[in-house]
Structures are given as C-alpha cells and as structure tokens.
C-alpha cells in the first residue's frame, strides 16, 4: 500500500516538473490512444443509422416533397400537361366556403373523432385508476377491456354491423321491447356517423389503458399510504396524487392526440367501404378514399393545408403541457 502511494506521489512530482510543452505532448498521447475507439464507435453508430436514414430520405423527405409538388400541380386543359398552379388550393377554399362540400364535412367529422379520442383518453385514465385500486374482478376486466384491441377489428366490426343491421338482434329486441322499428343505420349519413362514433367509443380503450395502469403501478406505495393516513379520499387521491405522478405518460398521449388531430380516423372501410363521395368520413379517410379512387393532387393540397394549420396547435399544446411541473420518483 505504501509503495503504491509513493509511486503515485512520484508520478505527481514528475508531472509537476514537466514543462508545458511536454504536458501538451502527453495530452496528445492520451488523445491518440482514445481516438481509434471513438472512431470505431462513431462509424458503428453511423452505419447502424444508415439504412433508416436512407429510408427516411426516400419515404419521408422524398414522399412529402413530392406531395407538396402534387399540391401545387394541376393539368392544363389545353396542353394536357401538368403545370404549376394554385388550382388545388383555390378549389379547397371554394369548397370550404360552400355549405355542401365534402372537405368541410370531413373536417367537422374529424373534429368529432378528435373530441371522442380525448374523451376516451380521460375515460381510460379513470378506468385505469379503478384497476390500480384493484376493483373487484380487475384481472378479468383487464382482459375483457383489451379484447377489442386484441381481436382483429374486422371481426368486431362485422359482428357489430350484423348485430345492429335491419332485422338483426338489436332491431328485433328494440322492436319487441319498445315497439320501435329501427331504420337501416348505415343507409343515411345522419345515422351512420353516430353509429360509427358509438362503435369507436364502445370498442376502444386497449393499449392506452394498459399503459396508464402500468404507470400507476410504478407509483411508490408509501406516497398513497401516507395520503390515506391523512384521510385522503379516492377522488382527491386520483386528482392530486395519481394524476400528477403519471402526468408525463398522460401528457405524452394527450400531445400525440393533438398532433394527430387532422389525421384522426375511424373504421370506415368495413362499415361503409371506400366510396369517395361519402359524407361521413374524416379528412384522413377521405384522403384515402380519394387516392383509392385515383385522385392525388387535391388530397395532397388538403393534407398540406391542414398540416400547416395543425403546427401552431402542436407547439402551443407542447408548451402548455411542459408548464405542468413533472414529478420524478
């Protein structure tokens, strides 16, 4: 031990005696021995990100740049050639100002689905709290509530569609109990839209519910015990202890919901198909139906317009959510 101390002291003395030039040389020596390892690490990191980067350049940058180009392109009636123009945007503003237009209708539908998404998020966190408090039967409920996320949507939608169809089981029951003959819910947009909204609400808590339960389970038990000893009730515990402690997880979901405002969609394909002229679609599904029908330029313009419109919303929401102090534990 003493020998080691002496050795270290000797090294310190040598270092003190060394001139600044020698010291600089030593630093260079150290750098030289570090360099190969760092270089290898950097090359490795760069190589690992190379394929995703190429993919990003083609399928994100390239696709979106081309989409912007499509939005500013229309076919010249005389030459039948594609030319730069604002025609798609002129059409969009004309459509939005008309009371009977599909884009405007799709925007209203999108906002409805967005509202429902937010309601479902709050419902999910509420239900998750009851699971966290071990509501009687919570193990079986967790499996049951996850069923719609687990069973392919095509199964649930087809079964639901047949259940509420004309002369179906729901029709028969309503007729026998209330004497009311239900119309064909999918024949008119005025009934089809609320029916699909109901289906979305009924069928969907899924993964977010599990993640909220997981986040709550990570809350230290002592915090809850201390609150209970102080006479804290369930409502207060949820609002003032659990929510702040899972705020990071919850706000992430909230932020993603706001970011995806204009991309909100519903399970329209199995319910009503992909008719480009339907009035019940959201913007996102309307774009899908248009592209499926062979129209590319107008959907690109609509997409670009609503993406730009959504930008401030995202940044304001992020700023607001970051204002809430995060509790770390």
């Amino acid at each position, binding site marked *: 031990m003493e020998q080691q101390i002496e050795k270290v002291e000797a090294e310190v003395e040598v270092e003190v005696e060394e001139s600044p030039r020698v010291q600089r040389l030593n630093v260079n020596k150290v750098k030289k021995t570090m360099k190969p390892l760092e270089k290898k690490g950097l090359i490795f990191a760069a190589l*690992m990100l190379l394929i995703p980067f190429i993919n990003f350049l083609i399928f994100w940058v390239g696709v979106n740049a081309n989409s912007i180009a499509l939005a500013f392109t229309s076919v010249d009636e005389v030459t039948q050639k594609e030319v730069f123009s604002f025609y798609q945007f002129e059409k969009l503003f004309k459509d939005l100002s008309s009371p009977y237009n599909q884009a405007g209708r799709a925007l209203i539908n999108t906002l409805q689905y967005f509202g429902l998404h937010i309601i479902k998020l709050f419902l999910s966190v509420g239900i998750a709290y009851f699971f966290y408090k071990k509501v009687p039967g919570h193990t079986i409920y967790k499996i049951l509530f*996850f069923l719609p996320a687990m069973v392919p949507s095509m*199964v649930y939608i087809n079964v639901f569609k047949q259940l509420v169809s004309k002369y179906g089981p729901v029709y*028969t029951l309503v007729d026998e109990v209330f004497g009311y003959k239900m119309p064909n819910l999918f024949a008119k947009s005025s009934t089809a839209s609320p029916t699909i909204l109901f289906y979305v609400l009924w069928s969907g808590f899924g*993964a977010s519910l*599990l*993640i909220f339960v997981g986040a709550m389970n990570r809350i230290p038990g002592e915090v809850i015990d201390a609150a209970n000893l102080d006479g804290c009730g369930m409502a207060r515990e949820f609002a003032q202890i659990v929510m702040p402690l899972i705020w990071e997880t919850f706000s992430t979901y909230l932020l993603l919901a706001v970011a995806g405002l204009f991309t909100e969609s519903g399970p329209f394909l199995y319910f009503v*198909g992909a008719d480009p002229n339907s009035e019940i679609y959201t913007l996102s599904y309307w774009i899908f139906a248009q592209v499926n029908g062979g129209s*590319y330029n107008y959907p690109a313009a609509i997409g670009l317009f*609503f993406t730009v419109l959504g930008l401030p919303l995202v940044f304001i929401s992020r700023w607001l959510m970051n204002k809430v102090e995060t509790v770390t534990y």
Partner: protein
Amino acid sequence: MEKIKKKKKVRIPLIIASVFFAIYGLSLVIPLGWGVIMSLKVPDEYFDDLLSFPKVPQFKNYIQAFVELENGGNNLFAMIWNSLWFSLGGTLTTVFTCMVAGYVCAKYKFWFCKAWYWIAIITMMIPIMGSLGSALKISMALGLYNNPLTLITGFSALGSTFVISFAFFKGVDWGYAESAFIDGAGHLRVLFQIMLPQAISPMIALSLTIFISKWSDAQSPLIYLPSYPTLASGFYWYEKEAGANANYPVLFAGLFMSAIPIIALYIAFQDKLMNLNMGGGLKG
C-alpha cells in the same frame, strides 16, 4: 369501528365501478359469442332468425371457409399466407430497426444520433397529411407497388416504436458494454450479445402490438398490394363483391379463424404487454 366505516367508504365506489365494468365487459363478450353461434348456422337459418341457436351446429362452415372465401383467385390459404408475411415482415423490420436505432441514439454521443432523435420526435409531432398519393406514386416508380418488397418501407426507425426503444436503452446501464469492451468485444457484439438480449421484453411487447395492427390493417394491402389480399383486405373484398348474397355463417367462420393467431400470441405474451412505457420521450 371508524376504521371499518372508512374501509366501507372506499369499497362502495369500487363496487359500483365493478358493476359498470361487468356490464361493459359483457357487452364486449356477448357479440363475439353471438358471432361464434352464427358461424355454426346454415345460411337460411341465419337469415330466418338472428337470435336462435343452430338446430345442428355446422362445424363444416369452418372447412367451407377455405373454399368459399375467395378473392381474385386467392383462397383462404393464400390470404393467410399473405397476412403472415405482411404482418410478420412488417413487424420484424420495424421492431429491429427501431431497437437498433434506439440503442445507438441512447448510448452513443454523436451529433447524428441527437439529430435522429429529434427527427423522430418532430415527425411524430407533425404528422404530414395527404402524402398517401405521393407515397403510392413513389412506390410505383421504385417497383415496390404490388410487390412484397414493399416491406422495406418498414426500415424507418421513426414513430412511437423508436421512442419506446430509446427510452428503454436510456435506462440500461452502460457498464455492461464497458466491461465487454475491456474484454475485447466489438460494438456489434455488444449490441447483439449484450444489449438486445436485455431488451427482449419490450421487443416482444412492441412486436405484439405492431403485429396485431398489421394483421388487422386492410387499407395498406388495398392500396399497395392489390394482388396480394391479406385476410383483412380479402374479407373486405369478399363482403363487397358478394353483397347481399354473402354467406355470413361462412364469413364469420373465416373471421373467427383469422383471430386465432392473434389471441394465441396475446395469451402467450400478455404479461409483456404491460411493460410498454413511452417514458415521456416526447417532452424532450
């Protein structure tokens, strides 16, 4: 006595919630049960009375589904095969790329890793709409349209899968890697033999969620793979083309069979699903 009263106060909301949950839970199970019963009927019986049990359960509907549920020359076997490679390929490419990128960005101090993290966050926060037409055109130009090679689009390392992977590797101790480097291991070996095996749990959870969504995705195969109908897009086409003449008992039989792989996967890995955590990654 007071203690007992307090306990009762807490219990009552839980019991009320339990009753509501039971009603809601039943509403989710009963339709599936009804569907299974309907899949065992003959077509006439199905249309005559949608509330009764079958007189003689027609288990042969589950065999007939393999013949009758056909789309553009693709029978149920072909659709199952298409669903398998589409879902499995899409899942493996996405999860593997995101895991590797998540690890590299979380552990290597390199400006490009930081830049990639922000690219992932920004593309998630600003989802650009309306680019489907453009994506289709580029897909056609690259020869990926109507081609299983379209799966290469999965090598993207963006989105929530990347954020979850990044958050996971941020929490993994770098000491394991340092010890391996001292023992002479290279970066690739550290990644494959030390880091990725530690991430098995989130990898399974992510794979399961992505696989389920791909299995149910009818829109992407409809747009990009018209000649390769998956179960999701194939059933849509069958119902659309058959219209009122669709054999619903057989369709239900096919639909329920298509759910079996997903349910089996869920049963096998249900505990892993609970471990998904975004780690507040979007807040930067």
